[in-house]
């Protein structure tokens, strides 16, 4: 059998990992180390529950409950002078804990400080829109929906932004393969030629690194040039990909040492 690959995370894996390797941590310092951050955190804590807070790489990270996201950002905007929402997006933790982590990157120009507000929601849960506080959230939330399928409540125009409207699947989820899923490989064929042309055209190959060595239409052969479109296979049949559980690969089922011959003559 082929080695089992987990289906909840189909992203590329390193081919080798030292199993005794313990990854170091980026240092987290206590919020009290910075007076401005400490004051901001106190102000947030006075009104909302803060699950965790620390300073990492010069920025404060505040973890809150997802239900409070609008309240906390509103407080930060109106009272704490965080006047810009630079960025907002999600992180896929579905494989680990079945949750999305959503982060809001806030900037205060008067204090010259940046805070990252984070919260977690379940896969089917939705989150409150911030687009009435910051217009920039309008497009960011659409992008988050487009890429992760996180539905945002009270959004004025909850629609895909980067992918086509009729796209299926959410590209930045860990379950989504890099080169697209089955839907993706038929999308353009169906759109342009119609479903009935699938047989003739075949699925779109979305692997940009794929090279067909007999294809003289699309691939040049430097140093071994041939006329364009010439058949250079010389009658050699295709060697399709096959797996041994489909009885595609010859495998010795029973090994009998008695009947086997050891070849001693190397020149034979």
């Amino acid at each position, binding site marked *: 059998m082929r080695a089992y690959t987990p289906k909840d995370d189909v992203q590329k894996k390193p081919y080798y990992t030292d199993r005794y390797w313990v990854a170091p941590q980026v240092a987290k310092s206590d919020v009290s180390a910075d007076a401005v951050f400490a004051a901001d955190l106190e102000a947030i804590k006075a009104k909302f529950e803060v699950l965790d807070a620390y300073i990492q*790489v010069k920025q404060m990270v505040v973890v809150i409950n997802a239900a409070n996201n609008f309240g906390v950002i509103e407080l930060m905007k109106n009272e704490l002078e965080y006047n810009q929402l*630079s960025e907002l997006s999600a992180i896929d933790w579905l494989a680990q804990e079945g949750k999305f982590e959503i982060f809001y990157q806030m900037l205060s*120009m008067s204090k010259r400080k940046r805070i990252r507000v984070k919260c977690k929601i379940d896969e089917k849960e939705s989150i409150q829109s911030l687009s009435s506080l910051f217009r920039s959230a309008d*497009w960011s939330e659409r992008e988050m929906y487009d890429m992760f399928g996180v539905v945002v409540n009270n959004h004025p125009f909850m629609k895909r932004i980067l992918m086509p409207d009729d796209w299926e699947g959410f590209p*930045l989820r860990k379950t989504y393969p890099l080169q697209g899923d089955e839907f993706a490989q038929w999308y353009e064929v169906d759109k342009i030629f119609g479903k009935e042309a699938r047989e003739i055209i075949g699925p779109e190959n979305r692997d940009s690194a794929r090279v067909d060595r007999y294809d003289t239409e699309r691939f040049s052969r430097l140093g071994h040039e041939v006329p364009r479109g010439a058949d250079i296979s010389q009658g050699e049949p295709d060697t399709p990909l096959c797996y041994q559980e489909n009885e595609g690969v010859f495998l010795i089922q029973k090994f009998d040492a008695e009947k086997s011959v050891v070849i001693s003559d190397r020149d034979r």
Partner: protein
Amino acid sequence: MQQANRLRPFFENITFDRDDNELILNFGPQHPSAHGQLRLMLHLQQEQITKAHPDIGYLHRGMEKMAENMIYNEFMPTTDRMDYIASSSNNYGFALAVEELIGLDVPRRAKVIRMMLLETNRLMSHLFWLATTALDIGAMTVFLFAFREREYLMDLIEDYCGARLTHAAIRIGGVPLDLPDNFIADLRKFLDKLPENIKDYEDLLDTNRIWLMRMENVGVISKEMALSWGCSGVMLRASGVEWDIRKEEPYELYDEVEFNVPVSDKGDNYARYKLYMAEMRESAKILYQVIDMYEGTGPELMAHAPQYISAPKIDIMTQNYSLMQHFVLVTQGMRPPVGEVYVATESPKGELGYYINSQGGAYPYRLKLRAPSFWHTGILTDLLPGHYIPDVVSIIGTTNIVFGEVDR
């Protein structure tokens, strides 16, 4: 059915659902003045826009997804394809984010070279902006002038890294190469000529009647609107917010150089144009200072951190352990510590941010690219209504959006 006594156009196969004057105009995605693959759905009353709906995604390549499937160094050339007008600034933003994540200290010469690349890129970007915007408005001469100067800078960059558009000239931990012999002399020659060149552009444009009509009081962005839409860079500074990340949160050697941050409170196209011109002069000022800094620096170009950064070539070729280390770093990639970082830099277009979430693996767990042009395109939704069709072209021009980074 057609009524013969009424003078109304009659189309056999079309029925009009709406009985008003609204016209929906599809602008782009292949319109030459859309600066790339921007599609705008414009609702018009006569020539006036009542509703604008930018549609993006025609250049979406899924860079964030690609980043999750690449080792860190592998992603560097991909960042070039974001803001391809000033690709070194994208390289730099990513390199800086990873350096912050692993806590690297970059040698001074590398910093100086990076500063030169960044500011050269800013000049290239601003010149390109001027050329294309002027061309959109109809000023062909300015286009030719600005491209002439940009060509010189591209040759200069080509001398440094061999590439003209997608430089990949900055590495995590430093820069790959020292400056070629003629670089500083050529750069100085260019900078000495630059004030004259800028004066040429300004002579052609500043008091040009057509230019003023198309620019003045067109596309006015208020301060609140700019902040709310997450604008940055010139888009923000033209609306009266004095915020330049190079000045406010200095990175690299920006705290050691003298430069001004030009600000305007007009918020219109003309203000943005003036700021671009002023910024070019400031970039030249920075470059002069950085050229002087180069002399006093040591020869190191890459940070010394064997766990993350390959040793210099001479060590790799002579020392076994460096070669092994290099082999592991190339095949498996560096594994930064567990943690997350958001680093913002001032790219020519605005705040270019990289958010990296590392889980200690060779591939980033999540990488979010915060490209300024994304929001500068979004603001068109609120900015265009009330304007007329010709204004669309000049407004898109001065927002300076690049679709490589809008769609990523």
